[in-house]
């Protein structure tokens, strides 16, 4: 039985309901019971002071790798959902790239059970599109869906064989399953470790050309059109791939897309000095790509911003650049990084909150991501002006691989509520 919680004095920003005003929020039985108006007889068992702060729908992260089962030296469901809660994230989707791969109901159940036991952020597993993500045989997609998978995906393991991919999509379309693509041509990207451009040539690092993404997105979109499947494209890194998505949407295809926050902020110039903490895949690209992604975000082609969280152990990052593993541990800095987009006049605060909550909810077909009366009380209270410093000691994620360690950050989560329960409170 959940508590009666009163959140007082905060600025409630709820893009779904066009709300942006200071008012109290009443939470009862895990739901939003009232906004502004006091409920007769309501006794708050917990009162959270939100004055000077923002009360927003909890964030929904479309891509956060959990590492469990199989890679628990990099992160566990407990450590990573704790990190997510500290980042104001109330729901996250985890790709099927565990070991064993999430291609069976047993693995899906294991992930769901462990996440529930941890009691922090809600985890929605993404099931495998093919068995073992090997790109050969169809996974039991409908069974995975029935077990609780929100979508199916082959992750970044590209399906080289277009006939196999077509059949995967036809089968998924039969049951109206959402297919998530992380499109990248495996041959064009095989040897590369960074964006192929003047900087790669200068650093002497093998490049991943822009066409590694655009060619793959173009092929995948043609098969989406042919099969009529519901599709989402995750973590676009190039301006022209965003353009392809925009064109497909204009044609009426049921296609959505998201972008990782680091692709909206940084370019391949960050790798000067061979900083392995900025080694990500898809790679940080050119300033032109960043500008195109920002435009696509504002224009609505990109409906969500995700962390693309990938926690790593230290050894994975402590090596010469090319020998390091890609990925940033990004759950705990998602908000402060995303707020830079407001500071840099890319989005308004209302638009940003939409990209972090309502946008991803709609991608997944969830009715969360908003604070309407009666909706599930997934809430994030944050102080957009609070300054803080990320340290390894205070990071909840097992993966300390953040390029922001030791740097001053602005914008911090104060409280996170999932299902009307306080799962995180800043110390």
């Amino acid at each position, binding site marked *: 039985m959940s508590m009666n919680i009163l959140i007082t004095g905060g600025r409630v920003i709820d893009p779904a309901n066009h709300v942006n005003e200071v008012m109290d929020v009443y939470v009862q039985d895990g739901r939003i019971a009232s906004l502004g108006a006091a409920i007769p007889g309501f006794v708050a068992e917990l009162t959270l002071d939100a004055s000077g702060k923002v009360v927003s729908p909890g964030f929904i992260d479309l891509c956060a790798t959990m590492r469990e089962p199989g890679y628990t030296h990099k992160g566990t469901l407990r450590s990573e959902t704790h990190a997510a809660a500290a980042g104001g994230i109330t729901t996250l989707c985890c790709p099927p790239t565990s070991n064993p791969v999430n291609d069976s109901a047993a693995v899906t159940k294991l992930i769901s059970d462990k996440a529930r036991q941890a009691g922090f952020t809600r985890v929605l597993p993404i099931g495998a599109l093919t068995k073992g993500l090997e790109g050969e045989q169809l996974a039991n997609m409908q069974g995975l869906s029935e077990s609780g998978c929100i979508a199916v995906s082959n992750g970044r393991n590209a399906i080289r064989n277009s006939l196999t991919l077509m059949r995967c999509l036809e089968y998924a379309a039969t049951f109206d399953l959402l297919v998530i693509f992380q499109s990248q041509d495996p041959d064009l990207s095989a040897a590369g470790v960074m964006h*192929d*451009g*003047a900087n*790669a*040539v*200068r*650093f*002497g*690092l*093998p490049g991943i050309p822009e066409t590694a993404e655009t060619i793959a997105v173009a092929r995948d979109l043609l098969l989406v059109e042919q099969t009529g499947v519901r599709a989402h494209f995750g973590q676009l890194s190039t301006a022209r791939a965003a353009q392809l998505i925009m064109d497909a949407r204009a044609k009426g295809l049921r296609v959505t897309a998201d972008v990782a926050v680091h692709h909206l902020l940084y370019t391949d110039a960050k790798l*000067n*000095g*061979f*900083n*392995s*903490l900025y080694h990500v895949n898809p790679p940080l690209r050119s300033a032109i790509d960043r500008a195109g992604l920002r435009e696509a975000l504002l224009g609505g082609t990109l409906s969500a911003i995700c962390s693309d969280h990938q926690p790593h152990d*230290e*050894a994975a*990052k*402590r*090596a*010469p*650049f*090319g*020998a390091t593993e890609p990925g940033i541990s990004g759950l705990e800095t998602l908000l402060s990084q995303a707020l830079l987009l407001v500071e840099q006049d890319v989005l308004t605060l209302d638009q940003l909150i939409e990209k972090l909550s309502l946008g991803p909810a709609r991608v997944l077909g969830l009715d969360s991501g908003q604070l309407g009366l009666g909706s599930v009380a997934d809430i994030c209270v944050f102080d957009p002006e609070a300054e803080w410093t990320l*340290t*390894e*000691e205070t990071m909840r994620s097992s993966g*300390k*691989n*953040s390029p922001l*360690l*030791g740097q001053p950050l602005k914008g911090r989560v104060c409280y996170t509520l999932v299902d009307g329960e306080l799962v995180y409170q800043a110390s």
Partner: protein
Amino acid sequence: MSHLTAMSHAAPHQLQLNEQGQLRHFLTTEGLSRELLTDILDTAESFIDSNGRSVKKVPLMRGLTVVNLFFENSTRTRSTFELAAQKLSADILNLNISTSATAKGETLQDTLWNIRAMGADMFVVRHADSGAAHFIAENVTPDVAIINAGDGRHAHPTQAMLDMLTIRRCKGEFGKLKVAIVGDILHSRVARSEIHALNTLGAEEVRLIGPKTLVPDTLQALGANIYRDMKQGLKDVDVIVALRLQKERMNTALLPSESEFFRLYGLNEEKLAYAKPDAIVMHPGPINRGVEIESSVADGEQSRILTQVSNGIAVRMAVMSMAITGQLQQQQDLAKQQGAEG
């Protein structure tokens, strides 16, 4: 211990100098000042006797230990570093890591910490990954002077500087020189280090010649003009550098065949005639006769290939003695600071 927080990421040229602007690691020619590169060349000159050979022996590194860490095989580069260290009176230890520790799964960091514990003052590092020497200098053993003997495709600064010395001894100053580098620039750490050094030393023009698969347009950003044709590219040049063409380039669809490459870009007497009559020919070696260079050119009057090798010892003596001085100075300054604080 908070290792990832401690990882810092300076641009390479900032990393290789101590607080007084002296060399303390030698990782890349990029970003170093003209004065410093000239200083390296002048110091190298001081190690060359009147016969054009490097001097017999000087006591500049007596009592210090140099460890040659070669994660990639190399006979010639390793040998010239070894000779240079001996001539500086250092103790030298050769380790071929490719065949020992890393094969047993030890990380690069553990391997290096172990070797440092043996009392090394300088590491000469060759590694297949771009940025490896930089990574070691910054994050593994910053207190040991690191000399980059080649990292991936990124840099091979001592080779570039011995080429600069060879050019300067043949041509005098750099100001009016046109230099053409021919062949597989994409995979060449030598070419990258040469381009930076030539631009810093004030060469009039650096040209890169080859097909788009080996000389992508993006290389222009390094400060070079790109040519696809040898006749145009070699016109009026003073210096030609031919690069080694690896056989594996044919297997990865970068080139159709050795014979077509030789016909179009191989340096023979006919193509050499497009350059200035007194142009010199260089090659970082080892050469593939009949692939990137014809024997008659490699052994001809305009060739300076063997001069390069002898200059290599003097340049490595210069870089090693300068870097050890700068590094020891840095460690002394750090110790003083810590003493003052403590």
